[in-house]
């Protein structure tokens, strides 16, 4: 089975959209890690980014706006043998799903969380997103965005997320390598991918991202304080793996005490149930 089989052929993204590059990086990462597509589930929310699983031949759960993370957590817990990827845009993951973002990091399920961060709402035609820059004008934010942007990297590190990275899709190869690291990492892995929205965001273009980002070099990702310092830089946005904490147990390990048997194989212990009912005699 191949990753480009069994998918929807009619791709709904605009020509030039960063989503295409993310799709390439994602599929290449899976291929290079030699992952069986039948072991991969992509869970998404709603929005243009959330259409990703439509165009990759793996298991797909295209759910509700903002709700990919609880679903992904549950899937991973119900069957820890699956590679679970939760993928959606910045509005979905950080806006509508902000509460789940925080609590998923706290739970630390072994999932990869890919966020297409284009700093705008595309599918609803160009309103501000939580990561839009201050002053960004839209049909709704007519005087320009008045709020400070949400900083997912800093929030994730503050919550001691076990893997935090940022990439820019202008560099597909780099993004692919980071995605591979995220997939190999045990625990919750955030990959915030900066991508232009060629239709609705005329501010954060490919060029803008090139000029306003730089690659982290000689960075020790196990140093949380350092990671946080890099995370709050806004002059130029660092790209790379900010932070890794390998010493965290995953949600599925903790909630199932290490049992990896898929829950579809579960059998009720009726003997124990009988004992439990009997215990209600006194």
């Amino acid at each position: 089975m191949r990753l480009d089989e069994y998918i929807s052929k009619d791709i709904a993204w605009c020509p030039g959209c960063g989503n295409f590059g993310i799709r390439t990086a994602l599929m290449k990462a899976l291929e290079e890690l030699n992952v069986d597509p039948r072991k991969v589930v992509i869970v998404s929310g709603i929005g243009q980014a959330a259409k990703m699983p439509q165009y990759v031949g793996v298991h797909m759960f295209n759910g509700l706006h903002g709700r990919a993370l609880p679903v992904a957590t549950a899937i991973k817990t119900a069957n820890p043998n699956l590679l679970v990827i939760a993928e959606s845009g910045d509005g979905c993951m950080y806006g509508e799903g902000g509460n789940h973002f925080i609590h998923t990091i706290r739970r630390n399920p072994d999932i990869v969380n890919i966020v297409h961060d284009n700093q705008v709402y595309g599918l609803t035609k160009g309103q501000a997103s939580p990561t839009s820059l201050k002053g960004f004008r839209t049909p709704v934010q007519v005087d320009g965005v008045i709020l400070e942007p949400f900083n997912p990297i800093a929030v994730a590190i503050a919550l001691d997320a076990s893997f935090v990275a940022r990439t820019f899709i202008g560099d597909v190869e780099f993004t692919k390598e980071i995605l591979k690291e995220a997939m190999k990492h045990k625990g919750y892995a955030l990959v915030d991918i900066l991508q232009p929205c060629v239709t609705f965001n005329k501010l954060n273009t490919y060029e803008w991202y090139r000029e306003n980002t730089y690659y982290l070099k000689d960075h020790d990702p196990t140093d949380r304080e350092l990671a946080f310092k890099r995370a709050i830089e806004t002059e130029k946005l660092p790209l790379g793996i900010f932070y890794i904490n390998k010493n965290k147990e995953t949600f599925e390990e903790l909630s199932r005490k290490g049992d990896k048997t898929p829950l579809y194989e579960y059998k009720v212990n009726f003997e124990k149930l009988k004992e439990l009912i009997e215990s209600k005699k006194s």
Partner: protein
Amino acid sequence: MKDVSIVLSGEAGQGIQTVEHVLTRILKNSGFHVFATKEYMSRVRGGNNTTEIRVSSERVRAFVDRIDILVPLGKGATERLKKRITEKTLIVGEGEFIGEEKGEKIVVPFLEIAKQVGNRIYANSVAIGFLSGLLGAERSAIEEQITRQFREKGENVVRDNIRAAMEGYRRGQEFSEKVGFDVEKDPSIKDEVLLNGAEAVGLGAIAGGCNFVSSYPMSPSTSVLVFLALHKNDFGIVVEQAEDEISAMNMIVGAWYAGARGLVTTSGGGFALMEEALSLAGMIESPAVIHLAQRPGPATGLPTRTEQADLNLALYAGHGEFPRVIYAPGNIEEAFYLTQRAFNMADRYQVPVFILTDQYLVDSFYNLPGFNLNELKVEKYTVKTSKDYIRYAINEDGISPRGVPGYGEGLVRVDSDEHDEFGHITEDFDIRVRMVDKRLRKGETLKKDTIKPKLIGDENYRVLLVAWGSTLEPIKEAIEGMSGVALLHFSQVWPIDDSVVEHLERAEKVVAIEGNATGQFANLIRQVTGFHIKDRILKYSGLQFSVEELKKKILEVM
């Protein structure tokens, strides 16, 4: 008197629940039938809470207004009970708490006795002992139960509490002849179990193969979450307290997708937040089991009281049109069997299945012989997928074979957008129509598994009472011995079995009895059958109907 109704009244935090727990078990293990129900305030300390315990020679399962013995455990504890206290009520307790109520009074200085034994905190054990003595419970049952209750606190605490209880017992016995209660014992009752509705739902879930629970705590549904958490390690159940109800419901939908059997337990306000993901379950044709323990609304309402006003919520929740099943257990046995069944039905038909209980049912308990586990089966309907597996294959009964990721060669692709047979997003109008039709056809198919309503009482009825859910037992007791009256009780309220029409048409008069202000179920019956039930006995104060109240109102409408 063969049936004694005891009411304990006091502040939250005073240990009424401990007294209820220990005393009911002592009485049951002494060979008495017991029933207990409580009503309490939404606060951690103070206020005024009451517990009613009925002790009887025969099975007893309903709430009565009558108070034979009142035990006020604090100042002002009789205040809210004034209407229910009569000349016949025996009021037992501290002189200062008994107050100026009418009724026969017995001053028992629980605190003083406790202090003499060693510590005022043993006062509740003195009360337990006193009531046990008054009713003629077994000494051995008291010792056993008190030991069980205080075991973890050490030998001394156990010993002192037993001494306190025995001192109370001695005093209770002194009065017993004078009072003359005559509840007969049946030793075989000792072998029965004592359960509340929440435990029955929890046990039913386990028996139904539930292995994934995520919820956000909300009265009165939390006790099911607590019960399953308590036993999760014995049964390998994943239990997660989610950040909110939105997450909880999405989690169980995700869990079912991956092959688990998920449950949420919530109340109306919590379920309001779950509606979004209920709609998701409808669209992606995911099974889901929802325990919704009703309490009065709207909004926060009366957080700890009872009502049957969320039928419409369960019935219409979620945008769009999709099938669902709603069970409304009438008693503890039904709570167990219907919850068990809910998981099989959800799996079979790939629809959300509700268990609609209420505070009265989840918080009430009585003794029962147990459950027949031999006939229970965890029916699994997921298929091993082949390479060319199609998730939403269109077929005659509307039920497409459901695969799970990782089991078989195929890919399982589901989409909250309207989708084609492969699960892919589509905006094709023809496919849209075919998919809606398929989902609704499934709703028709599942009707063959509808539980018929039960007819209870005079088969040659003139007056037919129509009720659903937890009013079952109070109505049953209210119409005992009445001729010309029968109860048609629904433990499945959606879909409604077609047989309802013939029952309704046979009656001269049909009366709906519901714990809500508008008669939601009666309205639903009219919508489905065209039969208009004009006469309605409705209660929405936050309390369950009492047997006396029902008897009076039923006689009035006859």
